[in-house]
């Protein structure tokens, strides 16, 4: 078995005495898109920062293509940084307003000391075209662009180093509907072209459905369910995943219905229960604490296991 492009094993991050991310396992296989979904406070963004080693974990391991990054110093990480890049939600804040788009896109090459200045300029222009912008934009500034165009620049900057893993944190959330589709398509095309593996962090289940191969659902720092996308949308097992799916507005006025809402207590009261014999792997039996257990078809759910 080959190593996954990105893997998190039992990663934990505490802020004060609160665990923002609690023993999270996550696998992004090569050339796949894994969506990390959850609401505010779920720890999904923190998990992304931990994966990028932009935040130090309190425990667990982060592996990039099988190589454990956890013991490495920031300096020793530098070569690995080329392999793993990020796009954030707010492209306006993440692009230096004083730099031209060409400079912004070429900057990572300069940081890693790649190519001559002239070659870097050429690369930047090529990447502008690759993300669907005119090469002439190289001399323009971020404020001259629309939100969607800026997000294209952010994607170009992230991918110019040819990373194997892209962490995209809500990259389409600030965009208009008609532009959102453009960016989702751009990510899909580039993913196919470059064989990228993407960790797509989002609260938008509609985008996730069209883009992701697998979905990981987080709730209060824990992974509560993980399954291939179709399985999540067709047969979610965890009550929280179901509540999330149920809350998405339906595009059909004829399908209007009254929803019933569950409180946090009701959701934890309905944690699924399984007998050990029903499961694919052998879990710990008779612990009161819920654990992530394997069902058929790479479907994992947090559940209480009885003997």
């Amino acid at each position, binding site marked *: 078995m080959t190593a996954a492009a990105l893997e998190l094993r039992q990663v934990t991050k505490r802020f004060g005495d609160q665990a923002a991310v609690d023993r999270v396992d996550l696998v992004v296989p090569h050339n796949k898109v894994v969506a990390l979904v959850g*609401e505010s406070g779920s720890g999904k963004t923190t998990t992304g920062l931990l994966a990028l080693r932009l935040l130090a974990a309190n425990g667990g391991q982060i592996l990039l293509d099988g190589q454990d990054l956890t013991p490495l110093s920031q300096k020793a990480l530098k070569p690995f940084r080329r392999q793993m890049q990020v796009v954030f939600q707010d492209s306006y804040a993440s692009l230096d307003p004083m730099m031209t788009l060409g400079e912004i896109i070429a900057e990572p090459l300069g940081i890693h000391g790649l190519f001559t200045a002239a070659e870097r300029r050429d690369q930047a222009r090529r990447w502008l075209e690759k993300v669907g912008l005119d090469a002439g934009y190289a001399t323009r500034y971020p404020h001259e662009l629309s939100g969607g165009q800026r997000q294209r620049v952010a994607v170009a900057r992230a991918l110019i180093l040819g990373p194997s893993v892209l962490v995209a944190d809500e990259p389409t959330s600030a965009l*208009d*509907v008609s532009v*959102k*589709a453009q960016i989702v398509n751009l990510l899909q095309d580039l993913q196919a072209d470059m064989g990228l593996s993407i960790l797509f962090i989002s609260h938008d*289940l509609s985008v996730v459905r069209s883009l992701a*191969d697998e979905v990981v659902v987080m709730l209060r720092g824990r992974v509560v369910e993980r399954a291939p996308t179709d399985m999540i949308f067709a047969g979610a097992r965890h009550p929280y995943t179901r509540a999330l799916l149920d809350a998405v507005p339906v*595009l059909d006025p004829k399908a209007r219905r009254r929803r019933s809402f569950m409180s946090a207590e009701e959701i934890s009261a309905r944690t699924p229960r399984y007998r050990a014999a029903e499961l694919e792997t052998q879990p710990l039996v008779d612990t009161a604490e819920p654990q992530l257990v394997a069902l058929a078809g790479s479907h994992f759910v947090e559940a209480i296991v009885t003997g």
Partner: protein
Amino acid sequence: MRLVEIEDLHVSFSQHDGLVQAVRGVSFGLDSGESLGIVGESGSGKSVTCAALLRLLREPPAKITAKTLSLSGHSVLGISNRAISTLRGRVAAMVFQDPMTSLDPVFTIGHQIAETILAHRKVTKREALAQAVELLRRVEIKNPGAVTNYYPHQLSGGMLQRAMIAMALSCEPDVLIADEPTTALDVTIQAQILQLIKDIQAETGMGLIMITHDLGVIAETVDRVVVMYGGKVMETGPVEAIFSAPLHPYTRALLNSVPGQTAGKQRLVEIAGSSPNPSHPPAGCPFHPRCPLAVAECRQTAPPLETKAAGRQAACIRVAAEMVAA
């Protein structure tokens, strides 16, 4: 008498680098008990239209002109500050996008609801506070008495939006205008707030204007829809008709571009290009640069909003009669 009557509304902002034409000739109305959705992307002019209706824009830089702009029969154009403030909150109340920044951080929730009541009604402070408790109970806040003593930072976003709705309801307005009321909230909270707004509208029979960029929110909440783009109305009609057979190419493109409508990883139907720049809107139909059906005439003259079928209007010369029939 219509609750809201807007006829040929224009709003522009003078800025150091020129004039921004945010709204360019918008007309629509709202009958009592009706719920109307205004859907559009950023820069479509949907929020500015409603801010103009309550005269919430700073003038200058904003400049508002219209043939008619009225709330429950009261014209809001050319009236004094004092006159408009007696209409705000009483005739038309508003709920905004981000509840975290919509309340004054240094006063309690109870104080802020009570002051709204005191601004419009002759009651004592004590009575106003008692009403605030009742209003909070009505928006399904548990222990409303305690919550009146809370400061905004002590409540979650969902709770604050409930409190904002309670505040908007406090003077029993004829119209509730909700400007992206769920955009800043988590998905599960969004659904709860939409349900609450629907319930209250059904209960009170007030008019509702729901401003949103989210077609799903429109599909879930309103009876009639106004689709805006580039400061103009592209299409209006009953919600079911709009979703089942959109007339305007923009509405159609917008509906098709919504992700996640069918199962499976797939490329989405995108609308090429980007929204028009409100400082330099294109001549003719604002959508023509992105429209697959555009012809020469679309680039020259902006098509008027015309009735194409019963209760349905569209601003497009390319909407053929047979499409309407279909």
